[in-house]
Each structure stands twice: as C-alpha cells, then as structure tokens.
C-alpha cells in the first residue's frame, strides 16, 4: 500500500498554512522561507503548492556525488541524510522542479520527506489541496 502526497492546485486558496506547518514540523524555527513546501502564485488568484514529487528516477539522487540521498523503504520518499551531505549543493540546480533547498541552519540541503509518513502540510491544509492518500 503506497501513500502519496498529492497536490490539487484548483483547491489551493494561497493561505500558506502548509508552509508554516512544514517549517514548524521540521524544527527549523518556524520561518516559512525554510519550508519544504512553497506556495507560488500563477496568474491572478491562482495558487500552486509546490513540493518534492519524489521522482522515480530522481535527478537529485543522481547529482549527489556522495550518496547522501536515497529512497526511504518506509515512506517511499527520497530522504536527505544530513550527516552524509557534504554541502556541495549540486542537487539544488539539478532538481528540474526546484524542490531542493539550502535554507537550513546547518547548511545541509533540505527537501520534503513527507514528515516520515505523516505530512504536516496535508494535515493542516484547510481545503485538501494537499492530501496524503493511498493510491
């Protein structure tokens, strides 16, 4: 049984609750800029929450020279191992979707890890624009 974090932009109202929930869950300091989900405005009054798509053939994994990224056997998400990350930042531009970030306190890259199987963004999204569902 695989669970996926799905995005339905049509339901997003741009409240950015997901960003705050994510920032707090990851104990950074609650700064939304350090969130792993980013809400972007496209055109007028249209919002798209963006987060890691956990690609089958992930560019971040290929770009990493030290194998600090691998797929979790429990969640299926690609996890960063901060203790292995050498902070070369190659994965940041390599991700074709811009979902790797360096905005962490310890300079290691950060990305969505679906909160280990209980994504805070989906839990707090008031309109189910983000959902963690079985597929």
């Amino acid at each position, binding site marked *: 049984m695989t669970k996926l974090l799905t*995005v339905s932009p049509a339901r997003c109202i741009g409240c950015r609750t997901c960003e705050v929930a994510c920032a707090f869950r990851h104990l950074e300091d609650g700064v939304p800029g350090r969130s792993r989900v980013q809400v972007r405005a496209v055109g007028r009054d249209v919002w*798209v929450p*963006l987060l890691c798509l956990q690609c089958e053939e992930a560019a971040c994994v290929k770009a990493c020279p*030290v194998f600090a990224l691998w797929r979790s056997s429990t969640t299926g998400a690609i996890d960063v191992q901060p203790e292995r990350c*050498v902070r070369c930042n*190659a994965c940041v531009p390599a*991700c074709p979707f811009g979902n790797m970030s360096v905005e962490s306190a310890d300079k290691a890259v950060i990305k969505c890890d679906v909160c280990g199987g209980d994504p805070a963004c989906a839990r707090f999204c008031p309109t189910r624009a983000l959902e963690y569902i079985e597929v």
Partner: protein
Amino acid sequence: MLNLDVNGRRVTVPKASTLLSAIRAAGFDVPTLCHHEAVEPYGACRLCVVEVRERGRSKTRVVTACNYPARAGLQVETESEAVLETRREVLDLLLARCPGSEVIRGLAAEAGLHRSSFPPDRNRDDCILCGLCVRICEKLGFSAIGMAGRGAHREVAAPLKEAPPDCVGCGSCARVCPTDNISLVDRDGMRSIWGRDFELVRCASCGRAYITREYQASRVEGSGLPAEHFELCDECSRARLAKTMFAHMALGPDAREEASDD
C-alpha cells in the same frame, strides 16, 4: 549484531559499527568536530572521547568513539569524570590554538572553560587541523587541497601553496569546516576560494549565479544527467513547475493560455 552498554543502557548494533554510532543509537551523544559520515573516521579532534571497559576486564580506557570498534559486552561511559576531564583538556588546547573561534568557545564554555590555561595563539586562524576539508575534497574526487608541513608548521594548503589547479570551486570544504575557517566569497557572479576566482553559472531565466562552471561540468559528467538540469536556478525551476501544474489543471482553455503567455 552485537550488544553493548552505553551509560548502563543496553543497545544492539550491527557488527563493524563504530562506538560513536552505538552511542547515538543508544540515544546519547558526544561532541564531534572532525566526524562526517561521508568519509572514514579520522579521530583528529579528540572531542568524542569516552571511557570503555572491555568484557572481562576491570581496567577502563579512554578512547575516541568515532574510530573505536563497537565490541560485544563493552561498557561505555560518555559522561564519566575521566571523560569530562580529558575532553576539558582537549578543549583547553583547542581554545589556546583558536581563541577567536565561536564554535570552540561555545564547546569550551559548555565544559566550564572560559579561557585557556595555555597562552592563546593570537596570530593563527581558526583551523584545528581536523582535515575534514581535505578528506571531503578527496572523497569528491578532486584532492585539490592537502596537508602541508609538519609539527607546528602543519597546515591545510594547496600544492606549492599556490592557487589549486584541481579545485572546481564547489565550496564543500568551506561549508563542512567545523570552525568556518575557509573563506568562500560569492560576488558579482564570481566565487573566490583558495586564492582562485571562478565564474559562476547564471540561471538561464533570472540570471542568479549559483554554481561554478567547473563544478557544473564535473557533475554533468559524474551524474549522467543532461546539462539542461543545471541551467535553471531552483527558484526558476519551481516557477516553471507551478506553471506546468497550473496549465494541466482543470481550469479551462483560457486559463491554460494565460499560463503559457507569462
């Protein structure tokens, strides 16, 4: 798998584990500066000292946890008097070597040391000679920097102390340095490190500079990814994804056109 006791708590770890990983698996921690999971344990900073008693022995020893093998029946103490004493001594020396380093000062203060009992060396930089930068550079396959000199003259340097020809300017050395001693300056689309200036690649869309041309070429070759992967910055890639998702959403053809016009 093997069992050992850390501060009286039983922990089971895989064979060939280090003491440090066993300590962390047991839910305890010891300070480290030179340790990094991407490279082999090195035992340079000496901060991870712990007291161990082998099975069937009465004597204890103080060892560095990062490069000591976890063995069955080992009894480990991470906060014993001998450990704290040794760690304080190590920090006393480090504090004399780099009195200006915030990291060292913080660790020393935690150990109750506010000034070194040795005369401080005011003319030195904050390098603690842990060699992490050198080891990471080697791991990445560049080996642009190394250790030079002996004894009191030992230092991290590029060959012949000139601008290192093998450096690609990835900046990993500066970012992993535990005392932030390596200077990396990004300004006006150029990166300066180790006395070399690198041109930074600018994002094809917004012009923001983010990776050196040399490191980009190296990662394109090493990863097998097409070069286009490194042509946009993360912000612009994200904007592109937003547009794509928007265009595919059921908003009708007008909205799709609007998205593609931007």
